[in-house]
């Protein structure tokens, strides 16, 4: 698979970042003291962590703890109240072009899928590769069909989103994000609507991509999934990162009492 190198991408994003890649091979994305408030309501509190190339970070935590908001902040869909998001060590300038380039390298699969209602499954996938990344029609078709097949949605290319089942929509959303061949992928509960068979399929695709160097952040409620797939697991509670550790450690030997409590049902089950 002809994955774009970090260098090539940086040349296209910002000149600061371009220089950076030669001298500095640090984290792809760093989150620094991120805070986010909605009105009075403080949703993210002093969040800091780094993402390195090939990392598969799973974020677990109770409902409403701020996991989705964190992903949305990373992707600049929400503006942080304070704190920074660094890309290859540099904060992004705020002009629309840079942010759009950044986003086309940092894909996202939403909890609510957000497929385009007016487009067929195929056009949904093509929107990113062909229209945004301006790849040739042949190349785009090929790569879209490849990922649609991987998630088993190739037969449905002509359907519109409202004609699909929940799991089907989710699979299209995954294929759409993968077809962009991003550097980093943010998944918000990517298997919530999938049956165990399909979860297995998606898992194997993800593992393969991770081996090829794709960096992933996955919000999930499936502990087994997190344990199996992640290189690092982050446990969030009430807007804080409570624990950030390799999965073996976090699941078998959680340091914090809150983590233990949260995992108790999973451990028993």
């Amino acid at each position, binding site marked *: 698979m002809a994955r774009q190198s970090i260098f090539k991408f940086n040349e296209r994003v910002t000149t600061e970042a371009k220089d950076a890649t030669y001298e500095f091979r640090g984290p792809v994305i760093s989150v620094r003291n991120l805070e986010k408030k909605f009105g009075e309501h403080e949703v993210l509190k002093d969040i800091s962590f780094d993402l390195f190339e090939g990392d598969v970070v799973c974020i677990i935590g109770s409902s409403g703890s701020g996991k989705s908001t964190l992903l949305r902040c990373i992707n600049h869909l929400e503006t942080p109240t304070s704190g920074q998001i660094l890309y290859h060590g540099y904060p992004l300038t705020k002009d629309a072009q840079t942010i*759009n380039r950044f*986003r086309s390298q940092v894909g996202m699969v939403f909890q609510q899928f*957000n497929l*385009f*209602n007016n487009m067929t499954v195929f056009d949904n996938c093509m929107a990113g590769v062909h229209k945004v990344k301006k790849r040739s029609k042949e190349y785009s078709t090929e790569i879209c069909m490849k990922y649609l097949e991987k998630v088993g949605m*190739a*037969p449905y*290319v*002509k359907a519109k989103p409202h004609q699909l089942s929940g799991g089907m929509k989710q699979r299209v959303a995954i294929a759409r994000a993968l077809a*962009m061949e991003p550097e980093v992928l943010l998944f918000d509960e990517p298997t919530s609507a999938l049956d165990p068979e399909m979860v297995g399929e998606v898992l194997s695709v993800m593992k393969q991509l991770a081996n090829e160097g794709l960096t992933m952040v996955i919000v999930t409620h499936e502990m087994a999934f997190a344990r199996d797939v992640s290189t690092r697991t982050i446990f969030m509670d009430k807007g804080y990162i409570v624990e950030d550790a390799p999965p073996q450690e976090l699941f078998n030997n959680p340091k914090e009492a809150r983590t233990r409590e949260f995992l108790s049902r999973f451990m028993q089950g």
Partner: protein
Amino acid sequence: MTNTPTTFFGWIIFLIQQYHGYYLQGLLTTLETSLAGTICGCFLGFLVGIIQATDIRAQDNMIKKILLGIPWVIAKIYVTIFRGTPMIVQAMVIYYGSSTVFGIDLKPFNAAIFIILLNTGAYMSETVRGGINSIDVGQIEGAKALGMGYVPMMIYIILPQTFKIIAPQIGNTFVANIKDTSVLNVIAVTELFYITKVAAGTYFRMFEAYTITALIYLTLTLLFNGLLKLIEKYMAGKESYEVLNPAAAK
């Protein structure tokens, strides 16, 4: 005088016989100006509506604020003035004013289209703005997350969905325009309504003359609505979809 009609329908037939040429000519003028004006006006309305739906955020830098702000302010002023003043005033100012102030000698017909266009654009922009605002934010976020710029997002995602919502509005606008051309006699455009006034004024048969016009309007409206329904249907696409044989796919 011997063949003076005595009934309502008699008069209608008589007036049609007397004035059918004028009615046809007026109808044609009305149609041409309002159709051209509506179509161009819709494009303008989409453009202005999009400009007005852009939100300039506090965190944007100065240059971006200015670049977005100037069209926004212009759009705002344009919409306010054209929605807020009667078309007849706009007609006078554009037709007579352009000649008095700038020495531009506009042809009445061209001026008419221009006026309808500007008027339609102002009304449509509000409609478009409302339509855009009613699109689920998930659609916008989906596009943003792909790194799609504002313009392609509008063209590929937002506007097609907006169009579906506001299609009945476009119908309303065209129908309103057909009727509004009546003020254009102030700039020497002889359209359907003027002919009606002439027919009514010559024989003093208001009801009959206006009934003819009402029937013509009604026919036009029905035709246009039918057309719009077809377009809506076409844009909605097939209800059913093909499931491809997994082997055949690709």
